[in-house]
C-alpha cells in the first residue's frame, strides 16, 4: 500500500498502465545473485564445463562465419603472392629439407645407438611422442588471459594437458578441449609452470609464467650459474613436456642484495604472433607413469604391469625393464640410473 502511494508521488516514475512484472531493482538483485552464484560454481566446481563445451560446439558455425573474411583475405593474398617469391621459397625450403635429411640420417643412427646404450645400462628408452598438426584460429578474446585457440579438438583426439610446440619451442599446454577447437594456455600465463633445465650446465629448475610474455625462475640462489643468453630446455620431469624442447632464453638477471634469491627473467622462444601452425604432442608418459607408485617390488608385479602397459608401450620395452617409466619421476625406486642422473643435479 505505502509503496503504491509512494510510487504515485514520485515525479520520476509515472505509474504504469500495465503491470510489467518485477521492478528493475528486484530484477537486478535477482540476476546479480544468479551471476555471483554461477561464478562461484564455475570457479570452485566443475559442473559447467559440459555446458561450455556444448555452447562452444553450437557456436562453431558462427565462428566459422566470423573467421571467413580474414581467411579469404589470407587465401587471396596467398594466391596473388608473386611467382618469383614462391620459386625462391621453394628453393630455400628444398635446401633446408636436404640439410635436415642429412642430419636426420645421423639422428637415426644416433638414436638407435642411444637406445642400445640405454638398454645395455638397463635404462628406459625415450619415447617418441606422436603429434597432431593444428592451426591457431584466434588469440584469446579476453585480453587478460594468455590463451590461443586452435582448430583441433576432441574430434581430433586432443586431450586436456597435452603439450603444444611450434617450430621454435614450447608454446604451452592444452587446457580446455571443445569438440572442434581447444584452448592452449601459453607458458607465459600466470597459472602455468614448466620444469626446465639450463642447456649449458643441465641445472634443473621450474619456470613460472609472469603474464607479460616473460618467464620467471624463482628460488635460485644469487650465486647460481646462469648467464644472460642461456637457453632453457624442458627437462621432461613432469611427463607432459618431452625432454629437450627449447623453452626460453634468459634475458635479464637481477641481483637484489637484500634477497637470498636471484630474479631471473627469460623470454619464450616460441613465436605465437608469427606462426599459425603448431604441433600438439601426445601424452605418452601420463599413462605409464601411473604404475610407478607400486613397483618397488621387482619380481612379482611386472606381469600385470606389462599386460597393462603392453597395449600402449612398444613391445621392445617389455623385455628390458619392468620399471620402464622415466626414472626422473621417482629417482628413489631404481638406484642405478639415479646415480647417472646425479651429476646433472645442481651443484
Amino acid at each position: 500500500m505505502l509503496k503504491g502511494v509512494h510510487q504515485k508521488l514520485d515525479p520520476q516514475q509515472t505509474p504504469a498502465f500495465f503491470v510489467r512484472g518485477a521492478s528493475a531493482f528486484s530484477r537486478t538483485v535477482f540476476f546479480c545473485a544468479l551471476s555471483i552464484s554461477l561464478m562461484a560454481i564455475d570457479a570452485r566446481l566443475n559442473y559447467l564445463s559440459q555446458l561450455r563445451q556444448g555452447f562452444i560446439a553450437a557456436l562453431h558455425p558462427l565462428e566459422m562465419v566470423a573467421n571467413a573474411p580474414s581467411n579469404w583475405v589470407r587465401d587471396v593474398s596467398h594466391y596473388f603472392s608473386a611467382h618469383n617469391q614462391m620459386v625462391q621459397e621453394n628453393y630455400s625450403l628444398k635446401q633446408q629439407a636436404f640439410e635436415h635429411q642429412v642430419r636426420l640420417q645421423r639422428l637415426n643412427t644416433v638414436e638407435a645407438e642411444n637406445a642400445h646404450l640405454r638398454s645395455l645400462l638397463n635404462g628406459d628408452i625415450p619415447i617418441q611422442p606422436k603429434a597432431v598438426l593444428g592451426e591457431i584460429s584466434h588469440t584469446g578474446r579476453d585480453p587478460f588471459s594468455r590463451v590461443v585457440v586452435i582448430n583441433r579438438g576432441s574430434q581430433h583426439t586432443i586431450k586436456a594437458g597435452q603439450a603444444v610446440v611450434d617450430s621454435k619451442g614450447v608454446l604451452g599446454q592444452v587446457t580446455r578441449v571443445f569438440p572442434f577447437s581447444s584452448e592452449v594456455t601459453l607458458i607465459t600465463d600466470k597459472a602455468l609452470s614448466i620444469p626446465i633445465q639450463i642447456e649449458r650446465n643441465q641445472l634443473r629448475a621450474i619456470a613460472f609464467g609472469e603474464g607479460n610474455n616473460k618467464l620467471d625462475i624463482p628460488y635460485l640462489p644469487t650465486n647460481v650459474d646462469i648467464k644472460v643468453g642461456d637457453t632453457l630446455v624442458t627437462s621432461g620431469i613432469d611427463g607432459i613436456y618431452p625432454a629437450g624442447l627449447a623453452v626460453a632464453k634468459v634475458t635479464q638477471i637481477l641481483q637484489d642484495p637484500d634477497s637470498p634469491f636471484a630474479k631471473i627473467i627469460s623470454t619464450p622462444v616460441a613465436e605465437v604472433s608469427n606462426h599459425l601452425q603448431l604441433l600438439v604432442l601426445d601424452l605418452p608418459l601420463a599413462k605409464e607413469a601411473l604404475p610407478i607408485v607400486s613397483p618397488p617390488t621387482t619380481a612379482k608385479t611386472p606381469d600385470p604391469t606389462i599386460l597393462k602397459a603392453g597395449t600402449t608401450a612398444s613391445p621392445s620395452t617389455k623385455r628390458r625393464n619392468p620399471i620402464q617409466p622415466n626414472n626422473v619421476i621417482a629417482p628413489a625406486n631404481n638406484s642405478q640410473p639415479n646415480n647417472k642422473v646425479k651429476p646433472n643435479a645442481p651443484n
Partner: protein
Amino acid sequence: MRPTNLVVVYITLLIALLCQLFPWVGQGIIFRPDFMLIVTLYWLLRAPHLCNIGTAWIVGILVDLATGSLLGQHALSFTLVAYMGLSYQRRLVLFNPWHLAGYVFALLVIERLLMLMLKLFEGNDNPGLHYFWPVISGLLLWQLMILLFGALTRSKS
C-alpha cells in the same frame, strides 16, 4: 523515435556476437569495443519493454561463454550497468546528444571498472590504462548505432 520490434533487437545482437567472435589479432584486441554491451545498452535505453535487465544478463552469459572467462563475470557487470542505465532511461528525452554521450561514457567506464575489479579478484594482474580503450571505441560504436537506428534524444526543433 520509431517503434521497434523484437526481431530487430535480436538480429542486431546476433551481429554484435559475430563481431565479438571475429578473430581480433594482436593490438586490435586492445581497441576492440564491447559490441554486445553497446548494442544491449542502445536497445535498453530505447525500448526497455523489449530489452531489459534479463536480456542484459543473458547477453553477459553469452559473452562469458564466447570469451572463455569465468561464467557470470560479464553477466554481473552487464546487469549492474543495465540497472544504472535504466534508472535514467525516462529522462533521456530531455538530454541533448552531448549529455547522452557523456552518460553512455560514464556507463561504459563503470562497466570497465566492474570488470577490472572482478578480474583482479580472480587473480589477474593490473593491465594498465590501455584497458580503458574500449570505452573510447565503444563511444564511436554508440554514435554509429545512433546513425543506423535513430537518435534517442529529441530532435532539434
